[in-house]
């Protein structure tokens, strides 16, 4: 009898331990997946943000103050501006275009909202800067008033600040919530007062 009891209790304790280990394995896997997604997403976001920020700070560099607007076109998801890539006067200002593409361009990923962020330099081919889920732009004049988009041609010269909102989500879902929705690791970067020193002040 006691042997039977030992076997039953041993099986019970063994089962509990197995359940704990299996559960722990699930939790660890989910945690690692979440953190891994977060790491990947944040690295993607920082890379995109630093590229965008570095370039937007130089809007108008090398462009004469007597020239027309240093920003050629200002829309809520795209911007075209002129800047010299180097500080030397021999570096001729070129046209730079940033815009976010369509979500249909990335059908292979889990995430229905991700899209490419594109950059075009002069007549060069379009290049992909990164993958984002949001690339929104807002423009402020010298009175700190937000300007409607698209900014009219005659108002482009009044742009003093550019507000950039970038959101990056993981291409594949980290987990599925209780309602069956796929959840993605997400990171948001918002540069609320990005001012180029070359814009008229």
């Amino acid at each position, binding site marked *: 009898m006691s042997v039977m009891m030992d076997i039953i209790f041993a099986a019970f304790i063994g089962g509990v*331990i197995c359940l704990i280990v299996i559960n*722990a394995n699930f939790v*660890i896997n989910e*945690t*690692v997946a979440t*953190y*891994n997604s*977060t*790491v990947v997403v*944040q*690295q993607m*976001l*920082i*890379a995109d*943000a*630093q*590229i965008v*920020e*570095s*370039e937007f*700070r*130089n809007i*108008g*560099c*090398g*462009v004469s*103050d007597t020239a027309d607007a240093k920003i050629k076109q200002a829309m809520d998801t795209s911007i075209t501006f002129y800047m*010299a890539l*180097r*500080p030397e*006067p021999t570096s001729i200002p070129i046209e730079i275009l940033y815009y976010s593409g369509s979500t249909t361009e990335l059908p292979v990923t889990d995430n229905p909202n991700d899209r490419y962020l594109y950059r075009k330099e002069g007549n060069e081919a379009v290049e992909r800067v990164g993958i984002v889920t949001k690339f929104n732009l807002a423009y402020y004049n010298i009175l700190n008033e937000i300007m409607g988009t698209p900014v009219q041609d005659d108002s482009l010269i009044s742009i003093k600040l550019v507000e950039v909102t970038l959101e990056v989500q993981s291409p594949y879902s980290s987990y599925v919530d209780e309602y069956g929705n796929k959840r993605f690791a997400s990171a948001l970067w918002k540069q609320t007062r990005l001012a*180029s*020193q*070359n814009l008229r002040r």
Partner: protein
Amino acid sequence: MGGRASLIMVIGFAVIFGMINLNITRLMNRSIGGMVGYNESSKSRVIASSGAHAGLAIFTSRSFLRGTLIDKDFTTGSFTGCGYTVTLTNVAGYVRLRSVGRCTTFVKTLSGDPYILSDTVEIRLDTTTTRSFSSLGWMTIFENGVWFVGGDVIWGQVHSNGNINIYSSRSSHPVFHGRVTTSGRIQLYPGQRRDYSEYLVGGHAEEHMPTREFPDEITDAINNATNKTLGLDGVTDTKETEIWVELKQGTSSDNDGYATIRTGSFTGTVVDSMSLSDVTDKVIYSSQKVHVKGTLDGKLSVASGKDVRIEDNIVYERPPDPDLSLGESVNQTKDMLGLIAHDNVWISDDFDGGTHGIDIHAAIFALEGSYGAENVTASWPNTRNYGPEGTIRLLGSVAQKNRGAVGLFDSRTGQISQGFLKNYRYDNRMFPEGDTRFPQDAGIAAQYPPAFPGWTTPGPLAIKSWWESSRVPFNADEFAW
């Protein structure tokens, strides 16, 4: 048996979960590493930008400074471990202000070294707005303990980077007819009352003003020299020889003046002759001493890589009248002379005008030395043995690095014992707005002697372009977390 197995099992689980926890913690650190890295790189960019703004502030007030303006490291506050180096450099066609920031981050590279971020801000400055030092009636960098005394009369704006020393007696005191500014203070002789308002006629005094800096070289005068490198004798390079320049007015008409350049003395071999006019700027330069005297008809600057020695009166054929508005016909004269020396502008100790003093119509600039009477402070007996020599009747302006003396005074009487008194009339044509007596002259363009040194100031479009270096995205995987 069972107890030992339990213990092994518990320890085994603890080790396994400990390792898992360690890895998860590392992953958590990496997950925030991107943002931390972004913050660090933002700090680096901000510090470079701060350096640029600090450099601009210095450039605004001391626009002639070049080289390293600031080299600063922060040891306290939120920018501890950060610093910047700001340099200002002349580049063909513009001035470049470069601020290089550095920030020691708290992360370490995989090899264990502190990771230092560096950003650069480069600003191209437009410096087309140039003002000549002749726009000041009197300017010195160092006063050298020389005094303004009773009998001295100074017109035009006065500025010194050092203390301005004033001595007055019961019967007389110096008089300033324009605005007086000093980067130091106005210093009266010990025991004299500190009420210098009686010295200021039509102007006011301001102390502790920003300093004004001299340029490094008299480059414009050198580059614009129009005298011959191969003299009329076929041998002499007049730009590399000690020369004697005599100014001749020609007839009483305008535009027929000329300058004769000789070697050895004013009666020596003629090596160059230069016609002068009201419309063409001419510059005579030699890297050696230049002696000068005569009557000028036209626009000219005489420059030396060493000393300019005034050997006798130097006057304009048609001098302006500073007591009248520039609109008056007498002030339509274009005669204008600049005396520019790398070292000193001396009233030669060979000149002896008795007690009649000397007339000098010129804007004077001494880059590294002084304007003064040669050897006037030498103790008796000396080669010149100055007595009271009368008054220097200057019509023009004076800018010098180290103030030189033109006379010595007796501190008991305040009277000149040897050398000259000063009567310095500012030539209002050089800065019409500096003479507040004639508001109708406002807006008239200032005239400067040819190639006269000046200082640059940023104009309304001072910043031609502002460039910031691009940040290579901060890769958290390259660091130890």
